[in-house]
């Protein structure tokens, strides 16, 4: 789960990290009111989960009431890389002489968190990492001990943060690790951490991503999740409890197990088709889940044909077959061609049950995918 900038900033501010004066607004009037209250210049910033908001026109600086109005009008309601902008953060524009980067993330390779500090803030840190890796000081944290104070200091000094700022930046980093740890974050980041002329530091942006698997014990953060901002189909997948990713093609894909579904996608591509989605119904799926999965792909207007690929381990082929039959029997006409491939536990029983007036049955993965791609090409014409 990714927090919005305004949410992350409020979490950071509560923990004692300095953030600019800011107000959330969802109308032009509210933006102007907030801007007048805060005083110019202000930044008007779209609150959507999209990287590179600035370049895409989602962040505008306003020096006056007119400019604030203008910024609000152009941003509120805009479509930013597919996301509709409902709300903006109106924020004091901070004068700065320098931009730093501080963040904590999980280093998969090491299996432990890593704290990072750089004096090259304000730009994409992944670019810095590629072009000038030495510009980022990294300090791995032992998750049993947590971050020792000396580690925060070391990262800050190693990064070359000026000595007069070191104590404050180290303190921010220590707080960020604490948040990372306490809140089950997968990532926390301030980029840029601005340095003012008076050597004050202030978090001009804020990123906080929470481990979805830990939301059960992060109630306060879980409640911040805002469904309205998500893709409709992805929301539906969330309700059904599917792992789902929407893609740009026209071949709907349903399967059990992430690796197998990914492989099905790859085979669709391999045989010249274009995957419309990743949909994993998980293990041990019963009839209702099967029907829900079909509902998902049928709801996607881009889908022209569907491949249903099940390798039964826990999942039983006859259960799946029944589910498919039941789900499809409710239609007067099947909306899109469905190809089913069953293997593993009770696969034969399943294939026997499957109503081949409703679906095309194939025995091998390769045949099923090829057939589906053919259907999708026919339908697309």
């Amino acid at each position, binding site marked *: 789960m990714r927090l919005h900038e305004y949410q992350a900033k409020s979490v950071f501010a509560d923990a004692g990290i300095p953030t600019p004066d800011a107000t959330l607004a969802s109308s032009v009037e509210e933006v102007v009111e907030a801007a007048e209250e805060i005083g110019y210049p202000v930044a008007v910033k779209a609150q959507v989960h999209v990287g590179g908001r600035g370049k895409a026109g989602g962040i505008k600086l306003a020096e006056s009431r007119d400019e604030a109005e203008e910024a609000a009008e152009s941003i509120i309601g805009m479509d930013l890389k597919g996301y509709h902008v409902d709300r903006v953060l109106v924020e004091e524009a901070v004068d700065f002489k320098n931009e730093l980067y501080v963040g904590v993330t999980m280093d998969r390779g090491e*299996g432990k968190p890593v704290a990072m500090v750089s004096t090259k803030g304000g730009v994409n840190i992944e670019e810095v990492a590629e072009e000038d890796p030495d510009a980022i000081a990294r300090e791995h944290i032992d998750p049993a001990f947590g971050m020792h104070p000396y580690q925060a200091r070391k990262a800050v000094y190693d990064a070359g943060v000026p000595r007069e700022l070191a104590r404050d930046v180290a303190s921010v980093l220590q707080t960020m690790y604490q948040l990372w740890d306490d809140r089950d974050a997968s990532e926390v980041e301030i980029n840029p951490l601005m340095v003012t002329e008076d050597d004050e530091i202030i978090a001009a942006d804020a990123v906080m991503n929470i481990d979805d698997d830990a939301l059960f014990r992060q109630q306060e953060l879980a409640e911040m999740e805002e469904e309205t901002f998500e893709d409709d189909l992805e929301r539906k997948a969330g309700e059904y409890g599917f792992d789902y990713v929407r893609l740009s093609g026209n071949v709907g894909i349903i399967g059990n197990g992430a690796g197998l579904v990914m492989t099905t996608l790859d085979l669709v591509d391999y045989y010249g088709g274009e995957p419309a989605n990743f949909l994993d119904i998980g293990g041990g799926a019963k009839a209702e889940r099967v029907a829900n999965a079909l509902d998902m792909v049928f709801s996607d207007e881009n889908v022209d044909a569907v491949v249903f690929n099940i390798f039964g381990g826990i999942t039983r082929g006859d259960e799946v077959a029944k589910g498919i039959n039941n789900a499809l029997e409710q239609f007067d006409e099947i909306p899109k061609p469905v190809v089913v491939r069953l293997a593993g536990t009770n696969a034969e029983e399943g294939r026997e049950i499957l109503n081949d007036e409703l679906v095309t049955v194939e025995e091998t993965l390769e045949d099923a995918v090829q057939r589906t791609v053919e259907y999708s090409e026919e339908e697309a014409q």
Partner: protein
Amino acid sequence: MSVLVDSDTRVVVQGITGGEGKFHAEQMMDYGTNVVAGAVPGKGGQEVNGVPVYDTVHEAAREEDADASVVFVPPAFAGDAVFEALDAPLDLVVAITEGIPTQDMAKVNKRLSEVDTRLIGPNCPGIITPGEAKLGILPGNIFESGDVGLVSRSGTLTYQVVDNLTSRGIGQTTAIGIGGDPIIGTDFIDALELFEADPDTKAVVMCGEIGGEDEEEAARYIAENMDTPVAGFIAGRTAPPGKRMGHAGAIVSGSGTGTAESKINALNDAGVPVGDTPNEVADHIEDFL
């Protein structure tokens, strides 16, 4: 022969009184696995499928001389269950549970560096030595005893590849599902090392997927240390960056690390042929044997 588990392995099922635990304990026993105990706090003294249940893993290990466990404990408590098994201590812990918080696993990972116990998983289908024992949820019937070792980050994809092998009469020494999470116990290199040391394993299948750099590191390991031939498969060639493909670990980062292309190239550079389809993997293995 086999690696890690065989018919002598004495297994505790953690969470044996839950739905999944009970079902799979029975499945494992039916397959021939030597399940000697269950461990569930508060359920000590009960029996499940004729197997005695203890309140703690320590007691189960002590009373039944167990040396391995399979964890079917809900994600909120699974990290603790793994710690319990590590500290019992057992020799092998197989964590099936999906959805353990990553920070819990980071702590488990730290403990793993302090003990001799091997962890497989979490979020994995388990491990099977065909005809001897399975610890986990793999469907025993698709496996056959033979010469090929298999290691995979994925569950059903493993079954797919095994099916392609078995249907050609190519059996397996041991198959290890290492799991799809970002932080896991046994990784590719650990498994490859075991297979390389096993005289009965004549070839190895390695099924990777997008995310992380374990496949790249495994490729380096293979190039430098392995005589046993390896064939590979990488799932997720068509996955877009930044989207998690089901598995918590299956994600191509924004900076472009973890792509299928990088992994396939690394494997090819290490002399490992990578199949475009699961069936092609079986072709390569057939060539090796």
